[in-house]
């Protein structure tokens, strides 16, 4: 039986097509993926992301512990700041990509919905004395407000000022007698906020955001558009671009691995991989003809399979087939022409640098 978020009835009443994802019944789309995608790029969208996981780590050893199980340097995290990081295996494979918040009492980890139980068990099994790990997911709702109009909408709904909060920073503040956490983060490439709160507050804030957001063009957005929005901005998705068979170096995310901070799980393997060079790399590509690359399609060059597509779609903004995939490093050069095998046809595509769309 799939779980429901506190907003389940709201989604159904808004006409959402619901889908099961990571054990939750979540809205896939309310109107259409393309229309919702465009609203987030042009105005502002509201997401229910309560399926995501939140894990709290506290205690005298919390910082040392987290520095040992993650790749980025937790010591560099200042109060009120957020860090993107990885949990990795001994071989450097990605267990999950996560956010770490330095909160007054310790650290607040935001993890992928599909991985939260795995991550929690991993953390519990490695926690030393002096570090306590608590899964807050069952108590926590998460809403995201994303788009060029996210700032005024969030400020009006919460009745606070957020213009001074830099990207990847957060504040805690009271709302309707509870404490909520407002974080300038997101998974769309647009300006926006992610707001964590106790479950029972979520319907109040959801309704408030939709009401004050009306003149700003706000619409509820489903998981379908969440995926196309992140892909256009070349953001990796766990399970597609990142798995335990891929390291942060394969994925081109070595800047989130700090080799100088001291020992951490996977360090040795990653150092070795770094000095030897990775055998395959994650690339972004754009199809030169009509067609849509999909997860699992072969990437070909001169008749040889050189890799595989990890994510693909038709960009709702550029109307072109776009995708990410791993290819043998020798073929990963920007500007190279590769072929995507789509139903036995070879479709030429160009490897490009950076995002698939540029936002203002």
């Amino acid at each position: 039986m799939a779980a429901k978020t506190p907003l389940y009835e709201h989604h159904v009443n808004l006409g959402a097509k619901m889908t099961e994802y990571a054990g939750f019944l979540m809205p896939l789309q309310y109107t259409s993926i393309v229309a919702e995608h465009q609203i987030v790029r042009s105005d502002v969208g509201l997401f229910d992301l309560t399926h995501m996981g939140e894990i709290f780590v506290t205690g005298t050893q919390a910082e040392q512990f987290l520095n040992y199980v993650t790749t980025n340097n937790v010591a560099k995290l200042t109060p009120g700041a957020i860090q993107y990081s990885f949990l990795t295996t001994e071989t450097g494979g990605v267990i999950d990509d996560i956010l770490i918040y330095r909160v007054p009492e310790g650290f607040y980890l935001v993890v992928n919905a599909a991985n939260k139980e795995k991550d929690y068990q991993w953390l519990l099994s490695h926690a030393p004395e002096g570090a306590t790990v608590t899964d807050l997911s069952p108590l926590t709702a998460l809403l995201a407000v994303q788009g060029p109009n996210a700032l005024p909408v969030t400020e009006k709904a919460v009745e606070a000022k957020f213009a001074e909060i830099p990207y990847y920073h957060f504040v805690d503040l009271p709302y309707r007698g509870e404490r909520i956490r407002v974080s300038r983060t997101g998974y769309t490439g647009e300006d926006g906020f992610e707001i964590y709160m106790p479950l029972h507050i979520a319907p109040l804030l959801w309704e408030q955001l939709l009401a004050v957001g009306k003149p700003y063009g706000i619409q509820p957005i489903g998981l379908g558009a969440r995926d196309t929005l992140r892909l256009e901005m070349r953001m990796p998705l766990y399970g597609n671009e990142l798995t335990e068979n891929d390291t942060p170096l394969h994925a081109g995310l070595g800047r989130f691995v700090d080799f100088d901070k001291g020992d951490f799980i996977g360090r040795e393997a990653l150092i070795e991989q770094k000095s030897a060079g990775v055998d395959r790399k994650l690339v972004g590509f754009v199809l030169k003809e009509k067609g849509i690359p999909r997860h699992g399609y072969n990437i070909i060059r001169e008749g040889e399979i050189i890799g595989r597509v990890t994510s693909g779609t038709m960009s709702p903004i550029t109307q072109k087939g776009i995708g990410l995939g791993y290819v043998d490093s020798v073929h990963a050069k920007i500007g190279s022409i590769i072929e995507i095998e789509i139903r036995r046809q070879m479709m030429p595509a160009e490897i490009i640098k950076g995002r698939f769309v540029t936002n203002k």
Partner: protein
Amino acid sequence: MEVRKGLLYSKDHEWVQEVSESVVRVGISAYAQDQLGDIVYIELPEIDAEVAKGESFTVVESVKAASDVFSPVSGKIVAVNEKLEDSPELINESPYDEGWIIEVKSDELELSDLMTAEEYARYIEEV
């Protein structure tokens, strides 16, 4: 979802309209396009290609996924809706009219196993 009266339907959610004694027009139902979501690409088949009942004759792609379209009849393709090349969204907007996909000709059209609109309406309620 509209189930257009007067058409015949397959279990794979294609509709069939009798154009003449030997020619039928084929598209996908309103229910099918709704399930697929925004259709952004269709790989149109060639005129004169043979299609076989129950076999895929084209692929429609929504933002989410690529899906086969199965022919509800056997025969030869005599017309293709070229408008879909540039406007595949017609399948979403007008599944029974502007969004038709192909016309198939056969001297021995086998339609008796297809569902009537009433039967199809009950069928989609059950799935």
